[in-house]
């Protein structure tokens, strides 16, 4: 029965050798000004050979092996459970949110500074993913240039603080509103497009913003970026050792505690946490409002939605604008956290990662998106030991996800709202 796979298996093994031998087996070594080509050690060659044999055997007995995998879902005790009732599900969701928020609140006081920093990054990605979830998951508009709005938020804060000395708290709404404005303006020409075309144009927009930031050296500093972005203050209290701005006092002196660099990190983390929760709640509210249903209706069937009198432009623009708004939010926090930004931070890969979070989490599902944001941000950090292979692991994880759970970690379930009995 494995015989009919023989040809295919031989071919796959051959491809494995062709691909891996030049990459792993040949090394370019610089010797002074010239470069020489050297063969690798015998161990590497043996490894390449072993890998080819492994691929050959796997392909030969593919049917049997995949058959075993096919039985894996049956081992999963959760696979055969019936649908959970809505009340129970809402309760579970609420418990989940409360638990995760409590954990998030105590988190900075029990872990190291690095872990808090990483958690801040996770929160920024949660904000971004929740925002993109509105555009891609709910309204069904494939946006590959989402990072542009993130960049607008970050650069708004950086430029305003550099040229006008505006503080974080004032820049936060300005950055978000400016990003929303960009989303709105971009929306107009773009929203008559659908599917692939929309994806290409948004992709182009993302690149335009990045290249503009890179080349407008007089304003943005180009590839050198903008540094010295101030940290947020707490009611006029600064977290640095010395007060930088007139009229402010320092946090540790006000409370009479010893100065610690950790205060600032924890404070930034808490700001990000509050903003992430704000994002979560606002978007949750939107989802239950008529506009949320209109997004979904338009995604499900554009003709039907329009036949019911919904305006395609208004509905799509609202999704685009709200998504961009929260990207601007996240961008401002990011600029403040890093203290330095450059166009390097807003490359296409960022858009792709945020999109991957939304898809992995389950389009439209907030709990799923939050879990995926945590997983996608932390996994590469955990896999740091594998250094250059971590993108490979990331890719493999995505492929496996799409094979076993194409609907995402926790697919979206619609909330049903009963009309109240009248009279």
């Amino acid at each position, binding site marked *: 029965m494995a015989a009919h796979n023989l040809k295919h298996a031989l071919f796959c093994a051959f491809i494995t050798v062709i691909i891996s031998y030049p990459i792993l087996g040949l090394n370019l070594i610089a010797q002074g000004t010239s470069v020489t080509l050297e063969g690798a050690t015998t161990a590497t060659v043996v490894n390449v050979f072993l890998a080819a044999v492994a691929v050959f055997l796997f392909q030969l007995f593919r049917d049997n092996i995949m058959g075993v995998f096919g039985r894996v879902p049956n081992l999963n005790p959760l696979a055969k459970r019936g649908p959970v009732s809505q009340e129970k599900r809402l309760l579970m969701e609420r418990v989940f949110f409360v638990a995760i928020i409590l954990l998030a609140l105590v988190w900075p006081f029990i872990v190291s500074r690095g872990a808090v920093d990483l958690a801040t990054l996770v929160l920024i990605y949660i904000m971004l993913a929740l925002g993109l979830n509105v555009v891609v998951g709910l309204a069904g508009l494939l946006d590959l240039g989402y990072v542009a709005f993130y960049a607008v938020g970050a650069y708004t804060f950086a430029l305003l603080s550099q040229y006008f000395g505006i503080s974080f708290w004032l820049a936060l709404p300005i950055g978000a509103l400016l990003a929303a404005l960009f989303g709105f303006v971009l929306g107009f020409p773009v929203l008559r497009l659908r599917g692939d075309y929309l994806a290409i144009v948004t992709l182009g927009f993302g690149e335009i913003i990045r290249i503009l930031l890179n080349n407008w050296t007089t304003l943005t500093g180009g590839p050198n970026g903008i540094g010295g972005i101030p940290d947020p203050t707490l009611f006029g209290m600064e977290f640095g050792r010395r007060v930088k701005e007139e009229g402010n006092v320092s946090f540790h002196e006000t409370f009479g505690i010893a100065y610690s660099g950790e205060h600032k990190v924890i404070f930034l983390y808490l700001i990000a946490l509050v903003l992430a929760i704000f994002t979560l709640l606002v978007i949750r509210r939107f989802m239950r409002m008529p506009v949320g249903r209109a997004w979904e209706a338009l995604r499900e069937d554009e003709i039907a939605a329009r036949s*019911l009198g919904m305006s395609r432009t208004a509905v799509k623009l609202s999704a685009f604008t709200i998504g961009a708004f929260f990207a601007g939010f996240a961008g401002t926090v990011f600029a403040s956290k890093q203290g330095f930004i450059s166009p390097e931070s807003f490359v296409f890969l960022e858009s792709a990662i945020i999109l991957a979070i939304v898809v992995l989490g389950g389009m439209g599902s907030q709990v799923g998106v939050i879990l995926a944001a945590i997983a996608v941000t932390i996994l590469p950090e955990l896999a740091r030991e594998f250094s250059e292979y971590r993108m490979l692991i990331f890719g493999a994880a995505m492929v496996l996800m799409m094979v076993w759970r194409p609907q995402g970690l926790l697919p979206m379930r619609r909330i049903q709202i009963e009309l109240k009995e009248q009279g």
Partner: protein
Amino acid sequence: MLVLENVHTHYGKIEALHGVSVEVKKGEIVSLIGANGAGKTTLLMTVCGNPQASSGRVILEGRDITNAPTSQIMRSGISIVPEGRRVFSGLTVEENLHMGGFFNTKAEIRKSQDHVYDLFPRLKEREHQRAGTMSGGEQQMLAIGRALMSKPRMIILDEPSLGLAPIVIQQIFEIIGHLREEGITVFLVEQNAHQALNLADRGYVLETGRIRLHDTGKNLLANPDVRNAYLGG
């Protein structure tokens, strides 16, 4: 109620309607019949403003809607049941109906919903079922019910018999007759010429973007040309 005056419609450079004039009076059932590609759906879409007429006028209840945006037209007392039903398959029957009353208050939705359930007891039975899992006939009922949720004074049906069993078609046409009794004006576009003309007060025959014939439903049914072309001799 609805008047089309010498309407021309273009898709890009190609003219699909070459000066069509149609009138639907209040309380009537008017049928529009024609072969594939005659421009039936284009005519309906022009009424809805997508695409808009390139010349001529579309007048709804005395108001010129030729250049109004689709969303405005669809909120001004007119409802369309699009071709191929187009119910929201992931939503339940009830949720689909609520989408139909999107711009109404909750109390109005509740009232219209009860009314739709009176008209289609079958939908009441399936209230919490997902629309995509229902039969074609039930989905068509739902599509009509959804269009009725906004309490339209006029309803446009695009090929309601498409892909349905003869017995179900019979039911759908009975319901359309019932709508007239409720005072709703009906503009019916059909390939199923026999049924459509039988029910209609008046009928139009559309051929390659022009109105060929215009008469009462009974006369059109008896017309030898119509019999030959649309009723299989």
